[in-house]
């Protein structure tokens, strides 16, 4: 049992530098908050169960002395049972509130107005590469460049099977569907270079379907747009 507790300490300590818990955008920060929040709420449950478990297993274990003991015939206990029906419900309500708030705002939506304020980028997934098309028509493969601090609105479609667009530090993933456009917004990315990958199994070279993301200053972004694509 100690081993498991120790492992939980490990996840906590390791949490200091885990990719998705070091978010680099507002979107990813909200998600990291939910992950941490739900983790600690759930630790309450884990600690309660483990404590009772260890206590009961130790205290009521078979010993030579208790060889002939006949346990009392207990059918149940209404008060106790109501307790562990009501308390988890309360705990889940606490969890549900921020969940609903953030989910409502972040969920990928059906195609949005392209005039909405922000940088609009078309993302086209295809076995096994990514194409990014910018507002002025510039296209580049497997390399995404976006300006810092702006809302970035991705319009995602696939040319063949389902893929999933994921840059862990910038936000959660969103599926890239054939024949249907989905939009997903990443708010206020911070400067830096980040990994991106396909997260939905899409065939032979799924593991190699990666891209690089670069978040640059706004001026550098404007300059990037007018450069000839390499």
């Amino acid at each position, binding site marked *: 049992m100690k081993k498991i507790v120790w*492992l939980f300490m490990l996840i906590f300590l390791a949490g200091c530098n885990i990719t998705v818990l070091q978010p680099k955008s507002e979107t990813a920060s909200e998600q990291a908050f939910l992950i941490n929040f*739900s983790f600690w709420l759930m630790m309450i449950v884990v600690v309660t169960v483990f404590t009772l478990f260890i206590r009961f297993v130790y205290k009521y274990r078979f010993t030579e002395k208790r060889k002939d003991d006949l346990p009392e015939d207990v059918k149940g206990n209404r008060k106790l049972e109501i307790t562990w029906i009501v308390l988890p419900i309360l705990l889940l309500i606490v*969890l*549900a509130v921020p969940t609903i708030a953030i989910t409502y705002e972040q969920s990928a939506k059906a195609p949005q107005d392209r005039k909405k304020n922000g940088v609009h980028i078309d993302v086209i997934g295809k076995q096994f590469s990514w194409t990014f098309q910018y507002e002025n028509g510039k296209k580049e493969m497997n390399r995404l460049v976006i300006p810092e601090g702006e809302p970035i609105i991705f319009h995602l479609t696939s040319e063949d*099977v389902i893929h999933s667009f994921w840059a862990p530090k910038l936000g959660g993933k969103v599926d890239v569907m*054939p024949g249907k456009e989905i939009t997903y917004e990443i708010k206020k990315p911070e400067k830096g270079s980040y990994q991106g990958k396909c997260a939905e199994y899409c065939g032979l070279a799924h*593991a190699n379907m990666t891209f690089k993301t670069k978040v640059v200053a706004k001026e550098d972004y404007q300059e990037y747009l007018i450069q000839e694509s390499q």
Partner: protein
Amino acid sequence: MIWKYLRTMNHRRIGIMYILFGIIYFFRAGLDALFIRAQLAIPNNDFWVFQGEKYNEVFTTHGTLMIFFVAMPLLLGLMNIAVPLQIGARDLAFPFLNALGFWLFFAGSLFFNIAFFINMTPEVGWTGYTPLSRAEYTPGAGTEFYVFGLQISGLGTIFTALNLIVTIMRHRAPGMKYTRMPLFAWATLITSFLILIAFTVLAIALYLLMFDRLFGTGFFSGEEGDPIFWQHLFWIFGHPEVYILALPAFGIFSDIIATFSRKRIFGYPVMVVSITLIGFLGFMVWSHHMFTVGLGPMANTFFAITTMAIAVPTGIKVFNWLFTMRGGVIHFTTPMLFALGFIPSFVMGGVTGVMLSVSAADFQFHDTHFVVAHFHYVIIASTILGVFAGLYYWYPKITGYILDEKLGKWHFWTFLIGFHLTFFPMHITGLEGMPRRVYTYTQADGIFLLNAASTVGAFLMGISMLFAVWNVYITHKKGEKVGNDPWNGRTLEWTEASPAPEHTFEPMPIVDEIDAFWFAKIENRSLATTLAVRIKPLEQETIQPFFIAMALLVICTGLTFTWYWLTIAGAVLLFSLLIVRSFTDERESFYGKEDPYE
């Protein structure tokens, strides 16, 4: 002996065959897991052939086998053996259907496994997402083996579920009211209803996919169709399936924890209600597998809430198990150790389940190793530990021998430690950004040590299974028979001989309370019996179920390779067999040629 088993309709023999094949496939699928872990042990690895195509084949096979051809038959096997004995039924209600159900499972699993030997293993993942599983993207016969393998065995599973429902409703011992039924029987009843609905949906999904692949229809793509339809259908099956795997295990643990705490289960009515509630809610959460496909904020919120709700009845069960032990005298036998290992492990899988239900957070978790960790935690902790517990517990009823306790404990500890060592690090690799179903990662990802730990754990689990094999060998070599009641049990199966005889419950015990056998024992009396009972379901040795299943196998082979002459031949064979069956009347041997009621 093989000839006898081929023709048997006896519930214990059919159960043994289910378990036997479940274990054979467990070893194959386990070996696949070891290949996966060997390839992922170090960054940029080139282990044997397991990159790209072969890796994709191996994880598809691992998932499909483990769910459909390992977990399902092992549970159905235990249900087949234990449930009739627990409720005082003298066999399943429809012995012919039971044999047919098994042989259909066998035919389906055989069909799926053949693919490997002719190098046509499917590589679409066990979820078979369209459009990847449509003929444009996976041409060749590989995916057909997935479609038809599951279709045939799924049909068998539906038959067996029907059979179990009727058996539990109609063949209980006198006095065995629903309120006195052991919890494994209750779990089996609810599970059977879930199977009936869920597997029917799967059958429809596979049927449509078959049309898309073979005849170019457009259910899952094009103008009218949509790949999302497949995901909906698959998960309307797939999520209840999780509870189909977990609920029977909950039942097994409930009986085992009560037996070895020497105490009745705490809060029996609430336990029954929570099984039912889990089963019911299980149908309302399927879209939590689809948070990232763009269903919109409304759907993402709704399914987050229903998913959280399911944690409540599950939590109730955990606390009731804990309080069953409180005040008891806990005997650390091997079955009990597996039950004790289950509680903390399952709670760890359960809480990550709640974390996953937080839909915006799931955008990060989805399709990463975090999810892999979560579902292995819940399925291994419940189903696999449950099956091991059940096998050690009922082994005397199955074979007449009791498995060695010392080796059993070695098996338990190595398996449990290996299990946590394998899957715990995956929570972190997932959060580090490692997606599922990738065959490689780089040094720069910083997940080498965690993956290496997983690999070590996986091999430890592999080694633990050698203890189990050795245990079975030793036990049978020793060949010491045990009595009716080696565990000091509480329910009716322990009133019967070990192994359970062909003709059980003669005379039939009368049940006057829950755990009647136990309370009779402590009051030093024997259970009242009666001879005025329903007659045993009639059974006869026949090879028909085997041939019916094989005829379906022939039909599907024909369809797979578009050899339509073979399909027609198989169909003719199938219909002839059905006609022969319609004119077979087992009652003749009992009542004589003439129907006495005419």
